[in-house]
C-alpha cells in the first residue's frame, strides 16, 4: 500500500528534523575527540587542523553546518508551533526554515573557500 498520507512538506520537515538530530548525535563523539586533542595533544591537533583544510573536509563540514542549521530552525519552528499562538501558513514556515538553513550553509561554504 502506498503511503500517500506522508506526502507533504510538514512531514518532510519532521523527517529532516529526526534525521539531522540522529546524525548530529553521531557526530558529537568526534567533536569531543577533537576538543580533547586541542586541550591535551597539541601536535596531533595541528595535524587535524591541516587535515581539516582539505576541500573535501570543508565540504563535509558544510553538510554538518546544514544539518545543524536545519535542526536549529526546525526546533524553533516546533517550539513556536507548540507554545506561541497558532499561525496559519505552516508550510510557508517550513519553507522559511529550509531557506534559512540553506543560506547559513552557503555563507559557511563561501567563507571556507
Amino acid at each position: 500500500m502506498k503511503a500517500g498520507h506522508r506526502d507533504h512538506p510538514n512531514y518532510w520537515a519532521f523527517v529532516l528534523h529526526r534525521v539531522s538530530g540522529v546524525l548530529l548525535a553521531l557526530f558529537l563523539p568526534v567533536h569531543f575527540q577533537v576538543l580533547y586533542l586541542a586541550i591535551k595533544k597539541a601536535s596531533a591537533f595541528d595535524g587535524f587542523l591541516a587535515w581539516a583544510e582539505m576541500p573535501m573536509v570543508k565540504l563535509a563540514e558544510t553538510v554538518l553546518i546544514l544539518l545543524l542549521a536545519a535542526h536549529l530552525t526546525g526546533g524553533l519552528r516546533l517550539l513556536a508551533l507548540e507554545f506561541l499562538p497558532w499561525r496559519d501558513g505552516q508550510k510557508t514556515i517550513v519553507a522559511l526554515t529550509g531557506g534559512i538553513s540553506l543560506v547559513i550553509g552557503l555563507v559557511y561554504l563561501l567563507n571556507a573557500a
Partner: protein
Amino acid sequence: MSGDTLTVSVWRGDGDVGRYQEFEVPRQESQTVLDVVTYIQRHIDPTLSYRFACRVGVCGSCAMTVNGKPRWTCRTHVSKVAGDGRLEVAPLRNLQVIKDLSVDMTDFFDKWARAEGRFQGAQTRDDDFAQVSPDSPKRRRASAGIECIGCGVCYASCDVVAWNQDYLGPAALNRAWTLVNDVRDIADKQRLKAVAGDAGCHACHSQQGCVERCVKHLNPTQSIAGLKRATALAALKGELE
C-alpha cells in the same frame, strides 16, 4: 475522462490476511469512488463489504484509502484521483479490518471517551440558556474544531497512531479541545488530566498529516497545540496532580 472503463484494485480479506482483487468498472460522468465501490457490489461481486450511509459527506462512515490516501469516498470524484484510469481502494489504515473495506471503529470512538470527549454541564433544564458571544475568543476556538464528522481520515493519516496504539489521535484530542473552550463545561481539570499523559497531546509530533487530509478542513494540530499549552500551564499550577 480517460477511457470507458476504470481498473479498480480492491482490498479483499479480513484482519491482516487478504489481497487486492481487480475489477473493471464502467466510467461515468461525475462518478465518485463510493459509486465505483457500490457498482462492484451491486453488479459484479455482492460479497464485497463496505460501509456508507448518507452519500453526501455528512455521516462520516464511507472513508477508505484511495490510491494510498485516506479520503471520504462519497465526496471524492474519480476524475480527481484516477488520472490514469486506475483506482486502488483499501480499508482505512490504523484500524482493525472487519472484512474487505469495513473497519472496526471501536478503538477510534473509545478514545473519544478516554479523552473526556463528553460534555459535562452544571445547569439543568430549569436554568436559562447560557449566553455565549459568537465573537468571544473561546467560542471562536471551539467553533474552529466543532464540525468534525468522525470519519477517521485524520486517525488513518497519523503516524503517531501507527507507532503508539494507545495514542488518543487527532479527532479525540480535537474534540477535547473544543470542550476545553466550551464555557458551559465544568470538567476541564479531569479532561486536561486525561489528555496530558504519554498517549495524549504531548505524543503528537506535529507532522500535520491530519490537517493535510481532514475532509472538513479542520486543524487538529492547532487543537492539539492548544492542549499542549493548556496542559503545560495546568502542570505549572499543580492542577494535574
